[in-house]
Structure formats: C-alpha cells, structure tokens
C-alpha cells in the first residue's frame, strides 16, 4: 500500500446550462480512483460553482497508481430524475510518481463529453504521497521516466543506453462487445476511453519494470500505438529505448551551464578513447593508406565517375522473387561471416534486439551508418483467446524484429537505430511493418556483457498457421565505416561499415569527399535525423514518393496473399521514385525516411517521406538521362529531348534553390574544372544486371554516373511526368520531415504547430493505377500548397517534421493527416557575417593545431546536445568556400559560440531591435522580469479583467528554438473519442473534426499547464480514425496524441540575467581547456 493520492475540487467555470427553466446548473463532482468514489456537495444554481472541497484521499497500491487514471465526473443534480452527466476529466497520475517530474497537478482542465465536446472547465488539485517500495518482486515501476523524445532529453545526460524495450497488451474492444448493443453511445465511448487509459497505464508500468530489470531509469523514444483490430480486439503496444539518464544540474542562470557541461564532455571522451582504441585496427585495415594515395592521383573527373547508382538502390526482396540485384539478408549471410566475427567484441551481438528508437544521438554514439532496413509481414487477424498471454501478436512482432536484425547484419552492422513499428489494418488483414537504420555504434554508452531479456527468450515463437505470406524488403543503400578519432566527425558516419570486398549488395563506392581516406557509398538512406556534426552542402528538402495500387476485392487468405504479392512492387516503385526525386534535386542522401503502406479493400497506398540533403562526404549525384528505347521517328526523339531539357532545367533550378553547388567546391579542392555536360552519360538503370539492354546502350561518353530512365511504354512517360509535377516550394519556404532543416540556422522563436486532415473521395470506381497515383500525388501536393499559403506570414520559414499519415478509412476514401511545425528563421546574414569574422579571429587566436580543434569539437558537440541551436546557428557562418573550413565549420563556430558570448549578446540585441514587437510579446508570455514588460503586463491584466490563459507551445520537435528546456514534467498520452448525431448542425464533417482537433489541442495544453509546464515537445498525433455516416447524420472520431510536457525558458532571458558571469566563466574555462 505504498501510495496516497489526494485530490481537491476547487471550482468550475463556463459550465453548460443544464436546467432550461432557470438557465443554470446544480453541479457536483464525483472523484473516482479504482473502485473508490468521493462526491462533492451540490453547488446550486451556478454556471461557475465554487466547491472548494476537502482533500479526497485514496490509499492505493502504486501498481494501481500507474495503471489507473483519476476520473473526475461533473454532474448536474436532479431531484426527480437521474443526475445528468456534464462531462469527465481523466487525469494521468504518472507524472506525479517520478520525483524529477511534476509535483502537483493544479489548474483549469476542460470537462469533456464524448458527445458534446468540451463543456466548461474544472479547477482541481492533485498530489501524491509515495512511500518507496524496494520490494524486488514488486509489480510497479514508479519513478521510471518516460520520454517521447527520440533523442537524449535536453537536460539529461545518458550514462548508459541499455537498449530496446517492448511490450504489448490486448483486450476486447468495448465497442464490439455484446453489451454495446444496449448501451448509449456515450457509455460505449467512455468505456473505450477508460479501457485504453488503463491499458496504456499497464503497458507503461510493464515497460518500466523491464527498464528497472535492465538497470535503467528511463525510457527514451517511447512509442505507443493502438491497433484497433475490431472484432478480434484491441492491441496497445509500445517500444522504447531504455537508458540510464542523469540530470545535468540545471541552471536557472546560464552561468552554471558551461562548467557543468564541459565536465561531462571530458569524462565522456576518455571512455571512447579507451574502448575504441583496440577496435581501430579492425576498421582501418591496411588498404586505407593505399586508398588515400590513389585518390589523390585521381583526376577530378574520375573521382566523379561512378556506376549507375540504381544498382545499390534496388530493393532486395526475398530471393524467390528474383528481382533483387542487391543481396537480401539470407543470400549474403555467408560472405559476411568474416565481418561478423570482427565485430563479436561488441556486446550488442549478444542482445536479442540491438534496436534503438532514438533518431539523434549524443556525439560518439553513432560510428557508421549502413542503410535503411525494413521488414513487413501480412497477417490475418484472429480472435485473441487469452488476453493475458497475447502470444500470437508477440510472435508476429518477434518474427519481424528478427528479420530486421538479420538485415542489419547483412549490412555489416550490429545495431538498428531510428527503429519504429507500425501496422495497417483493413478488415481482417493486417500489415505489420518495422523499419530502422542499420549502424555501428560506439561502445561508450553500451553496457558490457549480455543482457538478459529471458522473459522473451523463454517464449517459443509461434508460427502463424493461417498461411499468410510474409514479404520483406530491405532498402539497402550504403554504409560507412571506420570510426577514428582523426577522421572528422562530419563524415565519419558516412563511411561504409563493412569490408569493401564483401559488399552485401552492389554499390558504387568512392573515397570520402571529406577525409579522402575511407570509402563512402554514392547514396545513403536513413531513418534517423541528420547528425548535428554532419557536413552538408546547401539546404535540405522534403522528398516524397507516393503510390497507389489497385487490388481486387478478396477475402481472408486470398486477400492476404494478394497483398503480399503486391507489396514488393509497391516498395520497389516507391524506392525508384525516391531515388529519382533525390537526383532531381541534385542531392545524395535521405534522412528521416518513413515508408508507410496502407491497405484498403480495393487498393494499397504507399507514402515514403524523407528529407533529402547533399552530404559533402558523398559523391555528387549524376543527372537523370532519358533513353528512348526505339529511336525511330523524329517527333519521338524531339519529345524525349524536350523532356530531357525539362529535367535538366529542373535539376539546375533545384540546385539553385537548395544552394547545392558541389562542383564548385570540388573544383576548388582538386583544382581542375569538370565540364558539366560531360558528367552525364547514358546508361540504363540497373546497369549491374547483365541484361541485353545494356549492350544496346550508347556508352560513348564513357562515364556512368547518370541515372537513366528508359521510356519504353506509357507507364514510364507517366512516371517522368509525375517526377516533374512536384510543386516547387514557394520562395521563402523550406520543408523537411526531420527535426530541423539541414542547412538552416538562426531560427527565431516563432513557431506554429498545426494538424491538417483531408479526406478525398474517389467517385470514379474504375481508375487505373496511373490515375490513382496522380490523384494521390496531387492530394499531397495540394496539402503542402495549402500549408505554404496559410503560413505565408511566417516567411522565411521552414516546415519541420512534416509527418504525413495516410489511411483508407473506407472504400474510395483516402485520408491524409499531417502534423508539423512551421518555424521562421532570420534571413539576414549581415550580422552573422560580422560574427563569422569575429569567430574566426577568435579561433585563430586560441587554437592553432588540429588536436586542439578536435578537442574543442568534443566539447561543442556535447554542448550541442542540451543546447543544439547555438551550434547549428553557427554553421551558416562558415558556409564558406574551402574544404578545410567546411570540414571544421562545426568546431569553429560552435566553439566560438561558447567563448564569444558577447558577440552572441550583440546579435541578440540587434535581434531584439529588429523584431522588437515579437520579442516583447514573447517576454510577456512569461512575466518577464524586465520592468518594461511588467508594466505592460499589468496594464493588460487590468484591461482583460479575467486572468488570461497561460500560453502553451506545442511542437513535434524535441526542442524549442531560442529556448532552453529546463525540466521534463512527464509524458502526455491522451486518447479521446468524439461522436455526434447531429453532424450537419455541427458544420458537417469538417466542422466536426475541426472542433474536435481544437478540443484535443486545448486539453493537451490544459494538462500541460496543470503540470506546471509551458510547452509540449515531441508532440505527435498517432491515431486519427474518422468514420462518418452522413445519411444518419452521424460521425465518430478517435484521436490519440502524445508528447513530453516541459518547462522552457527563453535563452534571451537566461542571458539577459547573466551576461556578465557567463562570459566570464566561459572565458576562463576555455583558457583552461584550450592550452
């Protein structure tokens, strides 16, 4: 009995009128936890009741504290009939169970009803007294912190990253129980909401137990999902990364920041040296020096020439399909054995699943990136017989994870990062998908020795008996290798992780364009964020591949087989599209790749989103060449040459837009110009296949770096058209689906998070694949266009973390939901330039030799994790011309950031002057200590008689530009159902959903504010299931959202209060370390 939960009901406001006669309400409140219920007195005849109740005390087990929500029901007292419910509030107690999170929940929370939406607000106070239970066999896991954020949270330091945790719980869906036929929709919705609350509480507790077992104290990158399987039940599953986190002593004033940051960075460096040193010879084998030499003797044009890149981008499919020119996991297992042996040192090998849900990492964590690995499997849903032992679902995921692990091995990697799992369900067919990025990790954060997750091992993987086929795809790109302390970290992760003589799939390797010592692939695909230390050229952009495939209506096994057969083609085409679009933008790497496949009754939808960038370390991509197969008549030739011209123009234009101008850069380095047209050569795609086509090719140019599209049928023509129809982003806009746009710095604090949902009806039943593709593509493009238009006032700005979710809610309907954040940035570079020169001189003064530089980089990189903006900001400064300058740009600028705070100060001041109004309002948001601000806010308070609502920012990113997160208050994980039987009256489907989404935002904000927070980071809308029945005037929608509640302070305020001490300490600390 180790917990006492206390709740106090203070007051209500804006209650709805429940008594028509008096236009008033006689409200009282029921407070329920577990099976205990308390009631307040009735506060008669008021819409703003003041209950001011006593403290209601619940003495409960801490297991229940984790599982159960506190349930507050507001009712209208009625003497003659049953009391009418006004609405409910569910409060997740979890944040109060962790000593480092929130201590009290206090504030106005919206009273929510599943039929009427928000109906007034209630002011509550909730506290928990927890007695520590050290029982080894306890069932609770209080105190384990959960973070949705997929990086090490900003005010923590990762002492140890333990690895993958997963769990799933199943239950019957109340909506499909027999009782649902006799109860009201409200009762049914509430039963469902409550059940899901309970299930996610239980899930979190179980995951917490696993974390404790592993010796961790937190879960980072916690990803919880619901599978609404319908008749067969409801599955809640979660994955995450167990870590041991240590709080970096925070810092209300920045003066303490730097010393406390620099010390961890120091002790972090040592272990890396210690553990990596013996490993080095393995990676940097004898060929290394040789390669460097050959490289330097290469003519520049040769360094450019490479094979068609298509070969390494081929999907490697299951061997029997025979399409893979690349190696699938099984096929290439043999030659890889040698490599495997080399890596047995890694503790990861012994782990069941060396997976990490993180997408960005502390420096030194990620050594080499292989490529994207992903696996899918089609299953037929059956009834879950024993909800307590959800073996089938577990077994399904186990299979998939094993497969992912194999794929990673095939890429010469021992771990998978940026790992995520998802499902798509249509009737009784379910597609399970998992994807991640195969990598080699530094051992700094790894626990030594094998990890016991025997509870899983003891389970026998059950083979699914209905015979649904499994299909897997493995998107191999390439790899990197050879972590070396000397290798600039800006390119280290690009180096291939496996022996170049045993490439798991045909890839074109070249020497790294940064360090020139190691091999790099020509294209790199990943599911993670761009590492902060990566060297890139120009800016990035969102790249999407969209695909629709029709499918015959079928039932059961036949249906599953049909889907299985379609999947490889779908993946292959998505991949080709991605590759084409990447080349069209003159870029060579994709980050944050997310492939979503959605299944409907008569079609499959595929949407792949990623952020394209030009990695400086990788070779420049060739152009796209169109080849006509039958060069017979002149008009056809002309048509082709027109198209070719268009493509060339687009590439040139894109290079300009995204400031990708690598040839110049290469010229400077190597010193001999490359004639632009000669770069392109004619070649068929998949040149590596020794098909007859190849011989027909005109290879007279002798170079093989162009990507060739062959037009031999109408499909290809359509494809090329589709390629060119992507709407260019309007001036001033950028977009990406990663956390922050590569290549953009100096963000302002102006952000706007938004959610947009569109449902498109295909009235025409007989559409071809091409027609469908076009419609789907236009749908996505139009959505983007709408965003650009709506957010035009924020220009220059970037849409970050654009997260598209597609679904096929019913036949002929396509639903696209997008959540993203628009962040504006400062275009003016004049000040930055001034800073740059300042930085440079400073650097020169302080550091002269390489070692010191390297050292300062370590410091900076460490610094950048709690405070990434200062370092990224700096990057633009040195967007200069020389290779050397570029390679070390991170070091220079961010180092300078630390030691030249006065320059920062100067910039900030100028900034304030420039955008004065914005700054003042932002400072007002949080009762700034400045006298000016205070007088203003006083005035405002007076004029807006009522107390105004605190502003809560929301963002899908893990950071807030221009602000420092000082505390994590706990995870927000909310599930709501809204239903209406008066759809028309509520403004139709759009009006209904608009209100609902606004309500969900409002509830999230209110709960965050009640925890004492002023922002939600890593916010995501995981589920948005919308169903309508216009004939009955009905609609229903389910939304699941999650995020981390935090407290942030503006950097400007931090610095304003402690300018002097800060600069003083940084100066001294630099002096100490630099010499």
């Amino acid at each position: 009995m180790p917990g006492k939960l206390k709740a106090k009901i203070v007051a209500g406001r804006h209650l709805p009128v429940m008594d028509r006669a008096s236009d008033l309400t006689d409200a009282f409140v029921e407070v329920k936890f577990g099976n205990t219920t308390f009631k307040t007195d009735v506060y008669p005849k008021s819409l703003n009741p003041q209950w001011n109740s006593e403290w209601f005390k619940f003495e409960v087990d801490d297991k229940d504290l984790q599982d159960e929500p506190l349930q507050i029901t507001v009712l209208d007292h009625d003497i003659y009939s049953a009391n009418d419910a006004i609405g409910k509030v569910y409060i997740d107690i979890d944040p109060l169970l962790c000593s480092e999170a929130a201590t009290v929940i206090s504030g106005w929370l919206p009273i929510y009803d599943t039929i009427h939406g928000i109906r007034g607000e209630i002011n509550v106070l909730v506290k928990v007294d927890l007695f520590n239970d050290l029982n080894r066999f306890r069932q609770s896991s209080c105190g384990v912190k959960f973070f949705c954020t997929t990086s090490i949270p900003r005010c923590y330091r990762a002492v140890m990253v333990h690895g993958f945790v997963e769990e799933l719980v199943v239950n019957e869906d109340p909506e499909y129980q027999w009782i649902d036929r006799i109860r009201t929709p409200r009762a049914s919705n509430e039963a469902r909401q409550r059940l899901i609350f309970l299930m996610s509480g239980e899930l979190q507790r179980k995951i917490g137990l696993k974390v404790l077992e592993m010796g961790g104290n937190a879960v980072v990158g916690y990803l919880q999902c619901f599978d609404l399987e319908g008749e067969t039940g409801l599955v809640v599953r979660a994955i995450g990364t167990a870590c041991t986190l240590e709080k970096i002593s925070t810092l209300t004033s920045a003066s303490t920041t730097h010393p406390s940051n620099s010390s961890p960075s120091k002790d972090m460096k040592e272990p890396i040296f210690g553990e990596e040193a013996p490993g080095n010879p393995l990676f940097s084998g004898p060929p290394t020096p040789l390669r460097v030499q050959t490289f330097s003797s290469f003519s520049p044009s040769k360094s450019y020439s490479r094979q068609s890149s298509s070969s390494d981008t081929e999907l490697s499919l299951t061997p029997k399909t025979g399409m893979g020119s690349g190696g699938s996991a099984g096929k290439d297992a043999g030659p890889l054995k040698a490599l495997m042996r080399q890596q047995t040192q890694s503790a990861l090998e012994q782990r069941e699943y060396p997976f990490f849900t993180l997408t960005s990492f502390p420096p030194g964590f990620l050594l080499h990136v292989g490529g994207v690995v992903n696996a899918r499997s089609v299953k037929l849903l059956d009834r879950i017989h024993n909800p307590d032992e959800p073996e089938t679902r577990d077994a399904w995921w186990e299979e998939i994870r094993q497969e992912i692990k194999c794929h990673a091995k095939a890429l010469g990697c021992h771990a998978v990062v940026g790992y995520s799992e998802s499902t798509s369900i249509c009737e009784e067919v379910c597609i399970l998908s998992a994807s991640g990025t195969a990598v080699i990790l530094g051992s700094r954060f790894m626990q030594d020795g094998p990890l016991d997750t025997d509870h899983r091992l003891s389970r026998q993987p059950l083979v699914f008996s209905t015979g649904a086929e499994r299909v897997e795809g493995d998107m191999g790109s390439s790899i990197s290798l050879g972590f070396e302390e000397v290798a600039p970290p800006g390119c280290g992760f690009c180096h291939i992780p496996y022996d170049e003589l045993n490439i798991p799939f045909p890839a074109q390797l070249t020497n790294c364009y940064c360090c020139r010592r190691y091999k790099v692939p020509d294209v790199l695909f990943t599911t993670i964020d761009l590492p902060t230390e990566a060297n890139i050229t120009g800016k990035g952009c969102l790249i999407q591949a969209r695909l629709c495939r029709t499918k015959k209506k079928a039932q059961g096994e036949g249906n599953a087989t049909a889907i299985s057969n379609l999947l490889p083609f779908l993946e292959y085409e998505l991949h080709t599209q991605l590759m084409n679009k990447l080349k069209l933008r003159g870029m060579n790497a994709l980050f944050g790749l997310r492939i979503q496949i959605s299944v409907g009754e008569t079609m499959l939808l595929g949407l792949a989103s990623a952020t394209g960038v030009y990695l400086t370390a990788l070779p420049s991509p060739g152009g796209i060449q169109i080849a006509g197969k039958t060069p017979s008549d002149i008009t056809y030739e002309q048509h082709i040459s027109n198209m070719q011209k268009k493509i060339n123009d687009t590439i040139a234009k894109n290079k300009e837009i995204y400031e990708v101008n690598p040839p110049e850069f290469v010229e400077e380095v190597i010193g001999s110009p490359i004639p632009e047209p000669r770069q392109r050569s004619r070649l068929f795609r998949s040149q590596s296949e020794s098909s007859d086509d190849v011989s027909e090719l005109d290879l007279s140019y002798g170079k093989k770096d162009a990507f060739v599209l062959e037009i031999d049928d109408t499909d290809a023509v359509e494809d090329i058209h589709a390629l060119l129809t992507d709407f260019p982003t309007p001036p001033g806009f950028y977009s990406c689906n990663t956390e922050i746009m590569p290549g953009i710095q100096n963000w302002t604090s102006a952000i706007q998070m938004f959610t947009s949902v569109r449902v498109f009806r295909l009235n025409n039943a007989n559409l071809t694949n091409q027609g469908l593709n076009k419609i789907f593509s236009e749908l996505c493009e139009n959505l983007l266009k709408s965003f650009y238009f709506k957010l035009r006032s924020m220009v220059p700005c970037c849409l970050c973390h654009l997260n598209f979710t597609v679904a096929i809610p019913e036949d002929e309907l396509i639903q696209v939901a997008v959540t993203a954040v628009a962040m504006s940035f400062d275009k003016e570079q004049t000040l930055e330039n001034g800073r740059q020169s300042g930085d440079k001189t400073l650097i020169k003064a302080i550091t002269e030799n390489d070692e010191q530089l390297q050292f300062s980089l370590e410091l900076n990189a460490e610094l950048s994790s709690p405070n990434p903006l200062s370092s990224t900001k700096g990057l633009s400064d040195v967007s200069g011309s020389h290779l050397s300058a570029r390679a070390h740009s991170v070091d220079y600028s961010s180092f300078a950031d630390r030691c030249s705070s006065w320059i920062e100060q100067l910039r900030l001041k100028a900034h304030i002057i420039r955008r004065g109004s914005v700054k003042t309002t932002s400072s007002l948001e949080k009762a700034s200590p400045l006298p000016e601000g205070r007088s203003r806010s006083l005035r405002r308070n007076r004029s807006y008689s009522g107390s105004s609502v605190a502003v809560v920012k929301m963002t899908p990113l893990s950071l807030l530009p221009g602000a420092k997160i000082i505390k994590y208050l706990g995870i927000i994980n909310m599930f709501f159902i809204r239903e209406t039987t008066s759809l028309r009256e509520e403004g139709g489907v759009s009006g209904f959903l608009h209100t609902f989404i606004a309500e969900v935002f409002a509830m999230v904000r209110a709960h965050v504010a009640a925890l004492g927070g002023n922002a939600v980071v890593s916010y995501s809308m995981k589920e948005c299931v919308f169903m309508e029945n216009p004939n009955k005037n009905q609609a229903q929608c389910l939304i699941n959202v999650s995020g981390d509640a935090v407290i942030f302070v503006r950097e400007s305020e931090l610095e304003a209060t402690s300018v002097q001490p800060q600069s003083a300490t940084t100066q001294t600390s630099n002096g100490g370390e630099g010499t």
Partner: protein
Amino acid sequence: MSVELDVFVGNTTIMDKEVYQLWLNGYTVNDAVKVRIEGGIMEECEASAEVLLSDTMDQYRTFQMCERLLHHPAKLANQLLFQIPPDRQAMLIERYYAFDDAFVREVLGKKLSKGTKKDLDDVSAKTGIMLKSCRRQFDNFKRVFKVVEELKGPLVENIRQHFLLPDQLARDYAAIVFFANNRFETGKKKLQYLTFHDFAFCAGQLINHWTVGAVDNMMDDMDVDLDKEFLQDLKDLKILITDKDLLDQHKSLVCTALRGKTNVFNEMEANFKNLSRSLVNIAAKLINAKDVRDFFIDLVEKFIEPCRSDKWTSIDVNLYLIHYTNSVHILDTFKHHGVWNRYMGVIKSCILRMYHE
C-alpha cells in the same frame, strides 16, 4: 472525385485579418474567395483558387466557432479552446464590435427592439451593407445596451471593462447606448447632414455633464439617464426670457461685447431675442421625455438654421455663444449661475460641433 473533409488547426489559431473582415462584412465563402482573388493574392503567393477556397473555409469555420466567445469578450481571454495571442484577441474584439457609420446613423436613437431588427433589410438596402453584417452590428448594440443598462458607475468605463474595447470604440458605444436609451431623434431630414461622430461627440458632452454620474462620482446611479434634478432646475432659466428687463440687459451686454468684432453684428443684434428664447425654451422643456427626444432637432431648427441663413461663420457662432453665456453672470438679478453654466457649456460645444458652414 472530391475533397470530402478538409481541416487545418493550428496550436496558435491562425486568423487572416482580411478574411476576418470579409466574414464580418457578411460575405459568403464563395464571394470572399472571389474578393480575395480580385485582390491579387493568387499572384502574390502563387496560390490556386482551390487553396484559397480551402483556406477561406477553414477561417470561416474558425470565426464561427469564435463568435460565441466574442459575444462575451472577457471569455475570450480565459477560454481554453483557442490559443490566440493577446494582441490578436484585441484585434478580433475590436473588429467584431466595429460598425459602419452609415449603419449606425440609421439606427441611432431607435429602440433596439425586435421591430427595429426586422427592418434591417431596409437599412441594408439603403446603406449597401450586407444584411448579415447589419444584424451583427445591431446585435452588438443590443448586447452592449443590455449589459450596461443595469450596471452602475461610469458608462464608458463599464463598456470598456465588459467588452474589452479600445477607448474610442467604448465611447462610441456609450453614445449609441445613450442615444438608444433616451431615444433621441436623429432620423429627420433636417438632421441628415450630421454624421455619427457629430452625435457621438454631443452624446459624450451630455454624458459628461448632464447625467447624475457627471456631478457625483460617488453616486451609485447610472450614466445612461439625464440628471432629473438638473432638468428640473433648467426651468428656472426661463427668467432670462420672461423677465423683460433681464432680457434687454442681457442683449445690451452681449451686443456691447460683440460690436466691431464680427461681420454679422447686425444680424446678431436683430436675432438676439429669438435665439435666446429658443435656447432657454429648449432648456425649460427638457424635463419632458418627449422633448428630450427632439433635443437635436430643436437645436438645428431653432438655432443653427437661423444662424446659417444669416451666414454666420463658426467663429461668429463661437463668439456669440461665449458672450451670450458669460454676460449672464453680470446680470445681478440672475441667481442660477451653476445651472446656466452646466447647460450652456454643453449647448455651446454641441452647437459648435453641429454647425457645419
């Protein structure tokens, strides 16, 4: 093929001022889109008509959802559904409560009843303002009226506090409420030349000087009604025209002071008795509610028109009224100096404001 559902919700509610104005003006979504297209926004932002339509629909929905809150602006500040920055909130409120001069001129002084509301289509036809917008403006007047009618304390301050309006707008609303409450006649043909701001100015004068609140801030009474005691006292001024000696004495004092200072001295001298009688009669009659309604028409008919036909300039009128007011204090038999000043101060500023040359 059609878009079945299309929503966009921002954490900070996105509102376009231009679209808001179109919505306030009563445009339908399609008309609003047309107006926006004509405004050249498509070229400016490389947007398509489709995008515009979607955006306009979104915004209209947002405004409709907000409208309920705008009826009680104080709620806008502490509601949770929309996160709107304070300056935006102020903008929303200010624009929602803004009104067209042409419209207010039509309903000024009318009873804010259902009957008047029914006639709004005529007003709409006459002014060219869309019916929807007319209704909003009318409902605003009525809502403000209802709230402040029962409140104690200064009228303008009450309006500002309850509806969070900027000072000038609060004053205008005070004028509207004041006119509606006292039912001043403003629609007569002879008054057509006066603008709403002329009336609003006069209302401000009346509120500040002739109501109970004007004399005594401590009084728990309202600003909406004229000070009955004062109106009663105004009757005493009649002595200025009934007492022959006093009238002559007054005239000679005024004429002595004016001689040589104006081009229309002869007309002034000739009209003195008439004008003085008119002003004092207006004062004496104000005790009757019916005559209060005719206050402005009386001022125009009895004073402004005669002066205008004699081609007085504003300066002449000002000069005349100054001396006319001040000379009274020299009359030894006249005792009601306080009332006289309170009356003439307002009359003078009203006449000067209403005197369009």
